[in-house]
């Protein structure tokens, strides 16, 4: 039985950004699996709206960082400022200190800033002036990048990409939905009116429940078959890492929970494999990430599912 909270969350976000239920589902799955999401798409299809709506619906603090090439790590983490009254340095927290952070155009900034963000993402804490500060919980980064404009960008290296749980594309909405989106009031006005349906505490509880999802041996074997398959495929130069495998299992668990099960089935693994593994692979022919997804999709169609 699907958790009613998840149902409400889904419909709340869908009321703002229509016709994108798959992408919304993946965003929720990433949130449940304590992962981070990378959205690769052209501007203006609702990346920001999706992130913002998700934050609003979950009663989470939301911050948006627009990355530019002259950004410094301190711009996102925060700085220590000397307070003459207390004669102490005080830490002014940067925009990273929120529950859901939208890192827009992450590939526009220098690798230095990129790695600062990704480090924080991974560690869930930052160190400034010899003091360690925990990031809030739940914490999720939704990063976007524009695949079309490569001029003046710093594409994320594979090691950085590996840190995202999954990568999705929104794509243009279907004609029906787009028509409505164009004629109706803009998304942000809708978001402003959005009432939170899930509390932060609920999110944390659900994240714990995801950890407890059962994994049957045969499904685990199937998952590993897919992982090793990426390493033996002759279209792929670099296969999936062990971290990728961990993420795939985690995502499958989250998806199982999302679907209202307390155990994962091969279907979870199969459905999530393309968007969890795709962006981690390097193909032999230099093509985009979406091609890598197709390779994975093609590959899982050849692997026998445990019965």
């Amino acid at each position, binding site marked *: 039985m699907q958790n009613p909270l998840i149902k409400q969350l889904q419909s709340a976000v869908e009321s703002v950004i229509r016709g994108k239920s798959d992408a919304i589902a993946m965003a929720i799955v990433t949130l449940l699996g304590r992962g981070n999401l990378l959205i690769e798409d052209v501007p203006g299809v609702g990346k920001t709206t999706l992130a913002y709506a998700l934050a609003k619906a979950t009663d989470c603090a939301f911050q948006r960082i627009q990355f530019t090439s002259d950004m410094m790590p301190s711009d996102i983490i925060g700085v220590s400022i000397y307070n003459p009254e207390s004669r102490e340095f005080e830490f002014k927290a940067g925009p990273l200190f929120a529950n859901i952070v939208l890192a827009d155009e992450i590939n526009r900034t220098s690798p230095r800033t990129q790695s600062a963000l990704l480090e924080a993402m991974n560690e869930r804490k930052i160190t400034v002036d010899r003091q360690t500060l925990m990031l809030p919980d739940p914490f999720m980064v939704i990063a976007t990048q524009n695949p079309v404009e490569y001029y003046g960008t710093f594409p994320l290296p594979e090691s950085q990409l590996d840190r995202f749980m999954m990568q999705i594309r929104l794509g243009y909405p279907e004609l029906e939905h787009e028509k409505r989106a164009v004629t109706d009031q803009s998304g942000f006005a809708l978001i402003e009116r959005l009432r939170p349906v899930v509390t932060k505490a609920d999110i944390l509880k659900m994240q714990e429940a995801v950890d407890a999802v*059962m994994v*049957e041996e*045969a*499904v685990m074997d199937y998952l590993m078959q897919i992982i090793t398959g990426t390493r033996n495929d002759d279209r792929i130069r670099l296969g999936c890492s062990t971290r990728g495998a961990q993420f795939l299992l985690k995502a499958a668990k989250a998806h199982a929970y999302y679907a209202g*099960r*307390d*155990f*994962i*089935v*091969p*279907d979870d693994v*199969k*459905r999530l494999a393309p968007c969890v593994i795709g962006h981690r692979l390097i193909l032999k022919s230099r093509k985009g990430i979406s091609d890598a997804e197709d390779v994975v999709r093609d590959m*899982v*169609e*050849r*692997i*026998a*599912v445990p*019965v």
Partner: protein
Amino acid sequence: MPILYKSITAVLALTGCVSLLITGEMNLPVCVGGLTLFVGYYRFFRDRAQASKRVAAILAQAALFVFLADALIITGDVFLAVAHMTITFQGIKSFDLKEPWDHLQVYFMSLLQLIIASELTRALTFGVIFVVFMVLLVTAMVLSHFLKEGTLGRVRIRRPVSVIVMLTMICTTIFFMVIPRAPQRFIGKSHAHGIKTVGFSDKVDFGAFGDFKLDQTVVMRIEMDREVRPPYYFRGIAMDTFDGTSWRNTTKQISRILKTDNEFIIAPYDRARVVEQRIYLEPIDSDVIFGLARVTAVTADTFSLLVDDAQGITIPGKLSRRIKYAVRSDMAAVSQGRREERYLQMPRRMEKIISLARSISGAGSSDAEKASALETYLKRNYLYSLSTTLPPAGMSVLEDFLFNSKKGFCEHYASSMVVMLRGLGIPSRIVNGFYGGERNEYGNYLIVRQSDAHAWVEALIDGQWRRFDPTPAVAQQKPPALSHVLDSLRLQWTRYVVGFSSDDQKEIVRTLASSFTLKGLPRLRFSMIKTVILWAFALTLVSLLLYAVSRILRFKRYGFVTRTYLEFRELLRRKGMRVTDAMTAGDLLKLSRNNGLGDEAEEFLMLYESHRFGSCEMSDAVRLRYRDLLKKLRSGKFTCY
């Protein structure tokens, strides 16, 4: 677990053990140990707690040790030790019946017991037990199948069982007829000890016949090809040396005879004069060939025969396997002999007996008259009795018989006569065999029992061995006719089932072939048919073996859930959908939705996923639900969108 299923398991275990018990080869402690079976099954029926797996395992290991000791020391025969062990295991298993798998083990064990028993016994009872067993086994298998599928509550058991039993019977019969039998027994050793007989070995202790004269066990059944008037002396072996307490055969002249055209010719004979006896022997612990004197030819399944110079014929190796042979005897033939030292050998201190012999025979008459006189004297003046006492100290057995107790049985008479003849200088020997037998009018054959074992005398008179029987005739009581009917059934069993030979197959093929022969076609020759059958059989066997091996190699033990899921997949395939192995349950759901299958498919797949990958418990109700859904999907009676 239904009571029917329980009781069938119990009866199967019992049947297996009983089949071994009727062979009479099991030793007593094992049989007593097997009684625990009743306790075990009583507890099982009362639903008492079953032994834990650990205890069962420990017991089974202990049984293995006992088996080793049994095979190496106690019986010294691995085969019998296995039989003993199966009984023990059945006893152990009766306390450990938790899962269907345990029941299967019981079935398998019973089957093994039946197979072992078939090696050990030739009794008709076994045939009956075998049929009962087969029906039960099939029923049990069908039941356990339904039990596994969880549809036991709604099956009609009678029809499938009877159909399968019929088919099994037919197949068994066909196999029985068709499987070529080796004309020779390559594995000659039997593990059955056979009926203990006496008097047919190289050394016979005096008085041994006494115990057996009361035993009514049938030893052989004899069909003769023509009417022969009694008396029937079925000659076994002759003994020459007597030391006062035992008879011995000291001849060194034993010749080996090889087969010529299907039989062993011992002496040239004229077919018109000989009488043929087909002898169906119960398994006995002796290797002697019996037949009316004088045996001229033998037909038997063996490579060679041994014949000694006193016409004792033996088969090398034990007889308890061989169950029939044919003997051709020329009853009018005389057997020549020579005076030999060993036929005049005497035990010490026999002067008193020799003087008695002299006084009986009188001087001056011929050897033949002397012998007849002795024979008559012994017949008239002594009492036939099986209850003999030990002789007083210092007196030999014969002396006691002749002068003191004057009571004895065939051995006393015959031994006395041999000693007397030898005292008179007439070479003589004692012959052990069977005498008489009773005619069974249902089937027209002779029944020879243990109690017909007999010893008589042969004396060399004028260069010819002549038979004398000094034992007085004893009235036989006639058994009731019913036992004769039963016995004739046993003979049929021995003749057509146990002793079904390649000759019988030939006969069947001949009758079949003759009815199929068309004009213009070459006549079917048996050898040709046999070659074809043999090859066909060999090919079938090899392909079956290969198939079995490949199955075993590819075998995956699917549980109920996976099996039904695979059936569901097959169902979709049959409905013309493209189903691949890389499809998950979710994919199948989409597929079946697109093809207009209803909620049943969804429910089925949900059930499958939760039982296969989740931790949901199976129950009989759920099994039934699975089956129901599949049935609905199959028949097309489902909710359409």
